[in-house]
């Protein structure tokens, strides 16, 4: 993006030709993000770089911390200070963050973590694609929790879904992961940013009761308690220990049951509102492709090629990876003879599809281990194989 655009306000309305990483940064800014704390890592560094240029110009703050552990701690603190906050990293950095992501889940702290996936495990393939952190985004931290992770397939979606991540994190009060990948992060495409007034921006509910009567973890039917900012006169209690509605540690099975059940149920019971899917040519399909991120582009190309040959195949693109669309997969398993899952890992989404299909249809993964992406022709071959 040009210097000129970087001078513009929070929402860089207009047409751009830019990378997925810059688009994710702009989507975050448009959502109202005012704090970025991070430690640069390939292939996500351009997000930090872009935020470092943009945030100081719109009354925001950028901090490069000493490592990823401090970065996630910093954005949790910023969130309790009342601002929308984020970090961006890749697999190795996310690994360092998972402990404090758990703290964010237990303390119901809204924030956004972008993971631009590269090949792993460990240092793996720093500059090349992977989609191997799907399970980490779900189960990386210890304990029982539900979480949200979203996966864009093009540059426009990096903007749209970064904004959506902030909205969901504010609405449901939890850390939300934007699970990108190296190819989407680094490639350039057209990005159209609408005028500010056309964007839907959600911010956390604030308490309305008097400060002396306020219970910071008492939720209404939404199961999401209003969140006071430190310094507004309300008592702000933040602890990773199991806590009661006052926020005081309460280390009993009863308190644990109540607290942990609620932080899970606030997502479980709203799955239908949270989950976003793209269904493409599925109506009469006998074979379904389930894919996400960069892989879903080639999958769609394969569906188009197969349809030209008269093969009844469709695509279910998982925009939301977590919570997983169990019901949709279950329906699909009733309809189709086979589900193929192209993914750049050794079977992470495939395992979920197997679980949700309940043995009613054949489930087959089409794996790349990282570093390269499927071509539409390769997926077509898989479709044509009997």
């Amino acid at each position, binding site marked *: 993006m*040009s210097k*000129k655009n970087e001078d513009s306000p929070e929402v860089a309305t207009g*047409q751009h*030709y830019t990378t997925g990483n810059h688009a994710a940064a702009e989507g975050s800014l448009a959502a109202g993000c005012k704090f970025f704390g991070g430690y640069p890592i390939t292939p996500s560094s351009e997000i930090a770089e872009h935020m470092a240029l943009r945030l100081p110009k719109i009354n925001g703050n950028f901090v490069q911390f000493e490592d990823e552990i401090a970065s996630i701690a910093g954005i949790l603190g910023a969130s309790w200070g009342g601002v929308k906050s984020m970090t961006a990293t890749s697999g190795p950095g996310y690994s360092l963050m998972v402990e404090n992501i758990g703290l964010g889940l237990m303390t119901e702290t809204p924030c956004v973590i972008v993971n631009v996936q590269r090949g792993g495990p460990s240092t793996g393939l720093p500059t090349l694609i992977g989609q191997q952190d799907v399970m980490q985004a779900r189960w990386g931290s210890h304990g029982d929790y539900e979480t949200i992770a979203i996966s864009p397939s093009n540059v426009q979606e990096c903007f749209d879904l970064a904004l959506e991540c902030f909205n969901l994190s504010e609405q449901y009060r939890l850390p939300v992961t934007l699970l990108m990948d190296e*190819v989407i992060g*680094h*490639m*350039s*495409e*057209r990005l159209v940013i609408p005028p500010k007034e056309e964007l839907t921006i959600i911010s956390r509910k604030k308490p309305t009761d008097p400060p002396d009567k306020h219970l910071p973890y008492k939720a209404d039917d939404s199961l999401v308690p209003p969140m006071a900012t430190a310094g507004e006169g309300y008592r702000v209690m933040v602890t990773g220990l199991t806590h009661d509605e006052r926020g005081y540690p309460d280390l009993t099975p009863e308190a644990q049951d109540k607290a942990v059940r609620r932080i899970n149920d606030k997502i479980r019971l709203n799955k239908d509102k949270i989950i976003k899917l793209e269904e493409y040519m599925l109506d009469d399909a006998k074979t379904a492709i389930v894919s996400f991120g*960069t892989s879903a*582009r*080639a999958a*769609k*190309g*394969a569906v*188009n090629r197969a349809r030209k040959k008269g093969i009844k195949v469709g695509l279910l693109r998982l925009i939301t990876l977590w919570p997983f669309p169990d019901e949709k997969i279950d329906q699909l398993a009733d309809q189709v003879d086979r589900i193929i899952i192209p993914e750049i890992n050794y079977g992470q989404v495939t395992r979920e599809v197997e679980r949700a299909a309940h043995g009613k249809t054949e489930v087959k993964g089409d794996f790349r281990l990282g570093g390269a*992406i499927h*071509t*539409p022709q390769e997926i077509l071959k898989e479709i044509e194989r009997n």
Partner: protein
Amino acid sequence: MSRVEVRFAGFGGQGIGLMGRLLGEAVALGEGKNSVMTQSYGPESRGGASSADVVIDTDDIDFPKATDLDYFVVMSQEAYSKYIPKLKKGGIIFVEEDLVTLDEHADKAKKIFKIPATKIAESLGSRLYANIAMLGFLCANTDDIVSEESLLKVMKTKIKARYVEKNLVAFQKGKEHQ
């Protein structure tokens, strides 16, 4: 579908990435078509191998990388040797003739356009304009990539103001080269 794949390749410092960005943006914002630009480069900021791919299509671009090049725009010997196998049979080569010696692998090309882009740039005061001279040459000799109008518009907004004028001259010189 009318997918067109263009690869710019040379060494770091020649402005290969800029060529890709200018073309990609001119197509996507000026021509109403889709384009995806991807880059690859070595760890060195100058001297290492550098390439930029632009995939152009009226439909959605399902595969973002170039695999079967319609156009190969090449500005170094190393890049030529590395990528010539990727040129489609019947594809077209644009070559910096003073920096690249073609071999029998180029026989599969339908056409080969040669330009001393670096010399042209040096005549304008700096070899840094070679990439834009090449872009002008490419634009003048193709009709399914991009219009001159879209490209010039992007150049005026994306190139630093104090360098625009010289680059426009380089573009013109490349365009006029026979």
